[in-house]
């Protein structure tokens, strides 16, 4: 019996149209079949308008468990609200759910940190690449300007490969996006004035 016809007989069984016990035997041993068994019952209930007020699907249970486990650091009230969800009125829980994603960043951020560490050990040990966020900030006076740096050079002419090139372009684009997200906009007018005055000196 192929899976489609097994499913059909499961469906028939649910509808009370099949006395064939083979389907029942199959059901006991096949997890996906028993899932469809449950689903067919659910469909039947829905068609007969007999659905319970509170649908307890596996999915719902999994999400609830995941929310339970999540560290809530950003929105301290979110966890409490999640627990009292049944009590809270619909509107409120709706609003919380929009804000909820923020809580996931705790996990995501640690993942990013792991990535950075992985990156460092994989590549040269002597180059310390700071965390992405901090990286966009100046590194201070300990390093010579790029333009004056003593670069160990291979004295052969070399064309960058397409892969290298596109990787660098990506890095520039991401860096630019990060720079925009670390700009201090409220200080601009004052600084602009200051810089415009300093311009002749810089341009010498």
């Amino acid at each position, binding site marked *: 019996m192929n899976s489609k016809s097994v499913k059909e007989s499961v469906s028939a069984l649910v509808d009370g149209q099949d006395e064939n016990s083979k389907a029942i035997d199959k059901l006991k041993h096949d997890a996906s079949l028993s899932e469809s068994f449950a689903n067919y019952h659910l469909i039947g209930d829905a068609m007969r308008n007999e659905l319970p007020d509170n649908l307890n699907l596996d999915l719902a249970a999994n999400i609830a468990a995941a929310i339970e486990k999540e560290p809530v650091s950003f929105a301290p009230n979110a966890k409490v609200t999640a627990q009292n969800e049944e009590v809270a009125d619909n509107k409120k829980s709706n609003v919380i759910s929009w804000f909820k994603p923020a809580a996931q*960043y705790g996990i995501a951020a640690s993942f990013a940190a792991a990535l950075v560490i992985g990156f460092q050990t994989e590549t040269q040990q002597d180059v310390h690449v700071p965390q992405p966020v901090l990286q966009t*900030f100046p590194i201070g006076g300990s390093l010579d*300007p*790029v*333009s004056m740096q003593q670069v160990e050079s291979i004295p052969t002419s*070399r064309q960058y490969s397409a892969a290298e090139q596109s990787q660098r372009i990506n890095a520039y684009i991401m*860096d*630019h996006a990060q720079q925009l997200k670390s700009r*201090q906009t409220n200080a601009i007018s004052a600084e602009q004035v200051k810089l415009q005055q300093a311009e002749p000196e810089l341009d010498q």
Partner: protein
Amino acid sequence: MLYLQNKLNCNKQNLSLINKHFYTTRNCLKKWFLATLFFSFSALANDDATTWLSKMKTALSEQQFEMSFVVVHGNKADPWRWYHGQINGQEIEVLTSLNGPGQQIVRRGDNVTYLQPEQLAYTIQGNVPAGPIPEIIRSDISKISQWYDFHLVGKSRVAGLPARLIRVIAKDNNRFNYWLWLHEESGLLLKSALINQQGEVLEQLQVSNLQIQSEPNELIAEVAKAELPEPYNLVPSQSHLVLDWSIGWMPEGFAKVKSDQHYLLGQKEIVDYMMLTDGVVWFSVYVRRLNTGDKITIGEFSSGANHYASHQIGEYEVTLIGKIPPKTANQLLKSIYWN
């Protein structure tokens, strides 16, 4: 035969009717076009447009609202939700990306916090979040009027609401133009388009749902109390490092707001960096020293309004990224010189 003749006649009549209808429509269109033309000339009075822009700025900082909008740039469309309100006189706004891993931008007064999936949350001092909303709506109108003309063009209907169209037209060819549709009643932004000198739309923002509230949203109230990271304190001397190269030409009104050296994001290379702005557009210039004899391919491409251009000047790779016209980007890159 007679019947056929009749039918033919009838068809003819129908045709002429259609023609007549067509002409009326065309006349109407003509009139409408003339009216629009007249409108745009009569509305040359910059004052009206400026009044509308001020109204928008006031509304954007004082109103309590919640809106959903989609940003279209290149072949991408990103949906966002925007909450804004005031609590105890402090402006609070939240921008939530609705697709993908999601990111949130939270602004409390003069602090902007970025919550992104791959980074630790951090806070920056500033009142213009780098997000989906065009910076022009936050800019100082009297200041940018040096570089842009404002035109009140007419009325239209956007997001189901009556709207006014304001065109912000650059006075030179080194900037893009903006069209802003504002809600007639509140002055809030309903639609915006970024348009190049050739009249092509490069980026669009379209509001689909706007709710103006009398009380601050519950989310806003929650954010007001939430614990957010402390703002980074950037030392001005560090963000204004004197580099050994300069930009010989930049469009009028632009100025350096940052110059430093840092590791290129995710790379182990250090680059010289400069950020320039006119208060509407922020763009980045990078200078990287190449190994002796290295040659890079000159690269250039646009995505939406963002342009990426890269040149080789001697032993250096100079790169520009930002929302400026390609010609301007290249002209600026070519003007870089070493002291």
